[in-house]
């Protein structure tokens, strides 16, 4: 556009004055900007360890760690979307595998990485199902750093004993027996936080209610959002919400997790990054300070999400970004990052059997990862990313107060019809 050029000139004149005052903000050659939402605890520590090792390998590259806070990357995604809209992508950025990567960014924004996979022999090292989630038309668009599980329920074994409850087998049992017992004792039966953690809880309840096929059907159009089955899911979910802490909308994910280990709440459904929080930040011993199981009705299924990093088209320092991605996918990097972050390695040649690195929780989870049925997480953008997820979080937020099942399902049906890409 001509007016851009014209105005660009004016801007430059104006800025000539400014430039003197502001020391050079432009990145010098060799800078590599990595964008993520890992700002605290095990996440940040894991990233720092990765960066430290990378800097040893590539001393000439200066890594700029652009991390934006906000649980599950809610704010970070907003910031990243802004940058992509402005045509100013970072060199490499964190993006969840699945629809977040493929539908939001995909072929016009990302460079295919097949050359990197072939050159590094990764084609056989990453599980095929995972590669499917990051590929479209045979092009692979990112490098997975880890695997996380969404369906984990946390508790403290000793506390449950003391309160005289057991881990519920079904949500009905939880609602009808576990919840009243605990509420009478003044314990919050299930702790939860703000909207995205509620959505996280919802996907676990939905999987239990709909089964694997029904849950997958939500995304490809074979399960109707206003069907009696989905209505039943919301019904159950509403009853579960009644068993949660009522300051939930003020909390991110850590305080609810903390409530469990402090003994003010009995259970918490949160992804296994909570393990990293318990281990690294709170220094608790697995199995004693905290215990885990799958939430009711999700045994044998693994709701997965994977943090991946991609190479955007127009990355300012492509060479450094490629080096970073090549390092990230290597077994060495995966074994540096994942034990600290509290996640499973995505590269199957990583040393998962090394109990020095991966403790009891991870060994347990890895077995499930290799043997269970895998489905994608909604709250973490493996499915339904973008406009559907944004709209669904509004539905969840409204539902939090009103528990209006009919409205929720009708609106969700309309949202799905408008926004889900069914192929």
């Amino acid at each position, binding site marked *: 556009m001509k007016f851009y050029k014209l105005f660009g000139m004016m801007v430059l004149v104006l800025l000539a004055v400014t430039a003197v005052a502001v020391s050079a903000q432009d990145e010098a050659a060799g800078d590599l900007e990595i964008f993520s939402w890992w700002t605290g605890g095990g996440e940040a520590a894991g990233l720092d360890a990765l960066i430290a090792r990378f800097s040893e390998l590539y001393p000439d590259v200066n890594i700029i760690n652009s991390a934006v806070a906000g649980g599950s990357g809610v704010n970070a995604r907003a910031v990243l979307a802004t940058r992509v809209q402005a045509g100013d992508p970072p060199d490499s950025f964190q993006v969840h595998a699945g629809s977040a990567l493929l539908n939001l960014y995909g072929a016009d924004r990302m460079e295919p990485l097949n050359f990197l996979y072939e050159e590094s022999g990764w084609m056989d090292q990453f599980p095929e199902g995972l590669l499917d989630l990051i590929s479209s038309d045979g092009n692979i668009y990112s490098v997975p750093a880890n695997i996380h599980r969404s369906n984990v329920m946390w508790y403290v074994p000793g506390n449950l004993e003391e309160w005289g409850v057991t881990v519920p087998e079904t949500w009905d049992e939880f609602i009808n027996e576990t919840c009243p017992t605990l509420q009478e004792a003044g314990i919050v039966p299930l702790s939860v936080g703000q909207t995205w953690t509620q959505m996280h809880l919802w996907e676990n309840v939905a999987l239990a209610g709909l089964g694997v096929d029904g849950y997958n059907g939500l995304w490809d159009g074979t399960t109707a959002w206003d069907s009696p089955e989905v209505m039943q899911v919301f019904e159950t979910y509403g009853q579960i919400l009644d068993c949660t802490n009522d300051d939930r909308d003020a909390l991110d994910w850590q305080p609810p997790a903390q409530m469990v280990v402090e003994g003010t709440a009995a259970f918490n459904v949160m992804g296994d990054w909570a393990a990293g929080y318990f281990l690294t930040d709170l220094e608790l011993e697995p199995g004693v300070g905290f215990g885990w199981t799958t939430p009711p009705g999700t045994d044998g299924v693994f709701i997965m999400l994977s943090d991946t990093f991609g190479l955007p088209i127009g990355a300012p320092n492509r060479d450094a970004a490629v080096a970073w991605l090549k390092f990230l996918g290597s077994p060495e990097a995966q074994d540096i990052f994942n034990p600290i972050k509290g996640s499973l390695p995505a590269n199957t040649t990583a040393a998962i059997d090394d109990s020095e690195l991966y403790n009891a929780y991870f060994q347990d989870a890895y077995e499930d990862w290799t043997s269970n049925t895998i489905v994608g997480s909604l709250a973490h953008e493996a499915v339904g990313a973008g406009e559907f997820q944004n709209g669904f979080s509004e539905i969840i937020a409204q539902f939090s107060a009103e528990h209006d099942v009919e409205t929720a399902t009708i*609106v969700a049906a309309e949202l799905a019809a408008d926004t889900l890409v069914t192929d």
Partner: protein
Amino acid sequence: MRQGEPLISDRLKAVLILIPSIIAIAIFVYGFIAWTGYTSLTNASLAVGSGEYVGMDNYVDLFTGLRHERFRTDLVNTFFFTALFIGLCLSVGLLLAMLLDQHIKGESFFRTIYLFPMALSFVVTGVVWRWLYHPVQGLNALPTLIGQPPGEFRWFISQDRWFVFNWQDLGGYISAFIFIIDIVLVAALVYWNRRGGRLPGFIVAVMLLLSTWALLEGPQQLTALRRPETHGFNLAIIAVVIAAGWQMSGYTMAMYLAGLRGIPEDLREAARVDGASEWGVYRLVVLPLLQPITLSAMIILGHISLKIFDLVYALGGGDNPYIDMPGVNMFFTTFRGNALGRGAAIAMILLIMVALVIVPYLRTSLRSEHEL
């Protein structure tokens, strides 16, 4: 206009000096608004192949699409927030200004305290008040310091709602309201005609337009939702009102105080001589003279409350519908939901609301200057 016959080239210089600013404002304000307006008529998003022209779809969706309850909640929230916020700032501001006007000792000390929150960022205010609003402790714990039970109100995460109504009925209420105003206006016209005065043509024109709109059932169409949807006064708004009022009522006080200081002592003295009590002096002399200031304050506060973004963002983030406002929704719709078209539509509606308040104000400012 100056008489000193400056050289023509000086005149040209004056215009040339102004031109960069004119161009900047023309592009960055008016050009960008037009651009946003155009975007709001498309389905632009990050997705490939988006950006098709879709007419008024985004606007229609926001008002009547089942998916956009959040936007309608925003409108209702904005209405209550604006009303309460203006009310709080005006009453506290006027009270403090009147007290300070009594030539008391330590005036500047008190004034400094009442005004300091104005120097802060809304983000700071939000962060600090979020701590004060902690549902268990914070302000709720204050009563326990004097042996009372703690407060139960959950502040910005409260989900309580008063004056509950159905969105579908709102159109009818709006029409009814317009007709009532019409009747009042006609009565006023008759009355004023007898006294030989005239109502501003601007108001009459606006009311004619609104009435036509109501007669054509415009309000009903605007709220023609397929299913009932409850809205109401979300009590969580009170938390935002208090934090915003804390920050801005000192400002209102400063405006009133400047106004009070501008009233000549003679006028008050004259009223006192006529036997008015001290309260009577205020009621009969001072308050009427403060009316223009009240109007200015309402407009300034009103446009701030319509635009509010940072305070809500810092208090509760983007997912709390009970304190959500259009400015916040626009940000999240655009930059998290990637729905640029709809985000632009929200922005345009926000702009129209602000313009309705500001444009008449700027018009009268310009006109009053011509009369000078």
